[in-house]
């Protein structure tokens, strides 16, 4: 066991537990963005940084395994410096993000949006600057890919590669121009993507979303000539109960 202090209070956790999980076990919530349990622990977005005594710079909580070398260290999860850093990280992300929230499929259910609210972003154009302009891939029957809303967290890449063993999307180019896309900028429909949508449910923002066919259903319902017959899958009812449905 490793004895550490979190915000000054003593705790002891199993060796190898990350700072994030150690805090969670003791009721302390650290915000995350790019971390997806088991498949995407890469420390890329830097939202989950914390202060740790003895460290030269802030430490990403999601990928720091506590060991005997950390005995007795004190971890500050919400110090002013930490909160300021998390806010600046968000402002940097926004500076290269298409902030068209009002027309976005994920408005109200977007993790970037929620974090901006939680961490008090009050000037979304604080870091004005050049933005990438990527083409939007609408080639597939089931989804579209809008990389102008992508924050490079790579959760979708992890889902496609680790869950599905397919990996037709990934990080291409380098630096600011890095883009999550298919090989040679190919359309998703020309790749062996099996349209399973695991990347969509992994995506924190509106960069990946299913194609909306509801207008066609409304049209059919309104058409007196047509008889509309609807069948529902068993699994639908298991996830329909989410609060946002029943206002």
């Amino acid at each position, binding site marked *: 066991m490793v004895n550490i202090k979190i915000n000054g209070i003593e705790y002891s956790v199993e060796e190898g537990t990350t700072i994030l999980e150690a805090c969670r076990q003791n009721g302390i919530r650290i915000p995350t963005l790019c971390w997806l349990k088991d498949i995407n622990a890469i420390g890329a977005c830097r939202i989950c940084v914390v202060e740790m005594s003895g460290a030269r*710079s802030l430490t990403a909580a999601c990928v720091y395994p506590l060991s005997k070398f950390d005995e007795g260290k004190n971890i500050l999860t919400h110090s002013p410096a930490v909160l300021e850093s998390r806010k600046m990280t968000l402002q940097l992300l926004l500076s290269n993000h298409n902030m068209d929230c009002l027309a976005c499929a994920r408005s109200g259910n977007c993790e970037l949006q929620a974090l901006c609210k939680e961490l008090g972003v009050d000037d979304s154009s604080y870091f004005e600057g050049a933005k990438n302009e990527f083409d939007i891939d609408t080639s597939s029957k089931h989804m579209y890919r809008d990389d102008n809303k992508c924050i*490079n967290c790579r959760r979708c890449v992890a889902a496609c590669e680790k869950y599905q063993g397919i990996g037709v999307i990934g990080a291409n180019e380098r630096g600011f121009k890095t883009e999550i896309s298919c090989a040679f900028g190919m359309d998703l429909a020309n790749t062996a993507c099996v349209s399973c949508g695991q990347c969509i449910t992994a995506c924190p923002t509106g960069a990946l979303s299913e194609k909306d066919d509801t207008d066609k259903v409304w049209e059919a319902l309104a058409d007196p000539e047509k008889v509309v017959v609807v069948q529902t899958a068993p699994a639908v009812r298991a996830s329909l109960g989410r609060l946002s449905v029943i206002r």
Partner: protein
Amino acid sequence: MMTVAELDAIKAKLHSQMMLRKGSEAGEDTYRKHVLVCGGTGCTSSGSMGIINKLNEELKKNGIENEVKVIKTGCFGLCALGPIMIVYPEGSFYSMVKEENIPEIVSEHLVKGNVVERLLYSETVTDSGIKSLNETNFYKKQHRVALRNCGVISPENIEEYIALDGYQALAKVLTQMTPEDVIQTILDSGLRGRGGGGFPTGKKWQLARNLVKDADQKYVCCNADEGDPGAFMDRSVLEGDPHVVIEAMAIAGYAIGATQGYIYVRAEYPIAVERLRIAIGQAREYGLLGDNILGTGFKFDLDLRLGAGAFVCGEETALMTSIEGNRGEPRPRPPFPAESGLFQKPTILNNVETYANVPQIILNGADWFASMGTEKSKGTKVFALGGKIHNTGLVEIPMGTTLREVIYEIGGGIPNGKEFKAAQTGGPSGGCIPAEHLDIPIDYDNLISIGSMMGSGGLIVMDENNCMVDIAKFFLEFTVDESCGKCTPCRIGTKRLYEMLEKITSGNATLEDLDKMEKLCYYIKNNSLCGLGQTAPNPVLSTLRYFKDEYLAHVVDKKCPAGVCQDLLTYKIVADKCKGCTACARKCPVGAISGTVKEPHSIDTTKCIKCGACMATCKFGAIVKE
């Protein structure tokens, strides 16, 4: 398979011959003279290969090809004077040699025996006779440990390396020392990483040996990525003395219990790659790599892995990720490489120069090494002197030598009588050192305390004509291009930082922008995942610290004191110097210059695009830029 005895035999056989190159008369050696020609990248680019061929041709013509041996060596260090040729035992130092000088040198010096003074390096020619190389200013204060063999032995002949105690350290380690002894020696020597971080090498090896006891495989890696622009120390060691790195890595393998090593070399160094390939092949041939080395049962082998153009791969975890065949993106630490590095096995990664010191420490002992340098920075450091300096080249100085000595005494000062402004160390991760710190002893901790860092050794000297804001912008442009793009602070932060610098150098910035920029710098330093991001703001922070007035000039007065930032310059015609010859008006691409013939002309600054064509054509120096 070779035994220690055979190793010693080779050494004995060649030793006397090698002494010729240390200035003693040729013993029973068949050759009476050795002519060493520099085969480093700089000199090769200036045609030293042609010089060698011409030399061989001329020697045959004069029938003395069996008396004079021609050897292609590594870099001597004084690149500014390349191509370089030295004739032993006299040690006559011919500089800026051209092919057409060869016939004269051969007939006059090599045949008749009188040195062609006209072609010698001027400084060595004094009225009291020819000064030897080591007395010249460039070499006097140097102390060559890592560069010991560079410019002395032929890098493509393992036996010349063996002749100067090559692989004796490995023999000593394998036959007389336990792995723990080796680590203790390195610890006691106080050797710290020469890649720039300065982590104690002994400690790194100790961790790799002890952290994971039952690892089925461990790795020894060499960081020869040397991505810092303006740094070429590692290149010179690899091109001049590749075996020292091979021997040191074998010793490291024995110390931590690894049987496989990788050297990660930049693809931009073809000559170094070639020399390493030859050296590894010869080492295997002589049984100094592979199974049962020197009959001691120790097994160690080495492979080359080429970089492919990514500065970030100089960072240790990125380098390992690259060797694993991926995008060279750094990994979070811990786990540190000593616990889980290459292919998730315990790994040590040291810089070329760090390894170059190891055999010497083993042979001469930790105290010998600890006697050099300062209290916390032991030994010597190799610097690559470049930029606005006379003696561009390679300099190895004991830690503690001051910057003034390096620039003025060894470096020969600033050309064209210009004023020294700053020295930049540590490349894109480093900072600048202004005139006020010229007398600071160079070592890890001092450089960090003044906001710069040791870095790998690139030392770029800048004079009054360099604009420090422009230099900071240059480094940020580099980092933006070389960032791997994985983490937010570096991917987006450095881009915003670069845009802010562009705003300043184009005269559109406000004082508030300066504060915002400084805050962004500390944010990037504090939040980036790896060393590249954490140090990317250093060039900005250190220029802000020492040259704040230049920033203010750009922001408040909209002026660039050094006359570099195009947008802030205005071209003006000095009325009394202008003869009205209309040459400038005709050259101006945008018709911004007006005036009648023979009358002083004037430039309409609103139209002027500041291309400088008028200034270039004016014969009377009537056009100035401020």
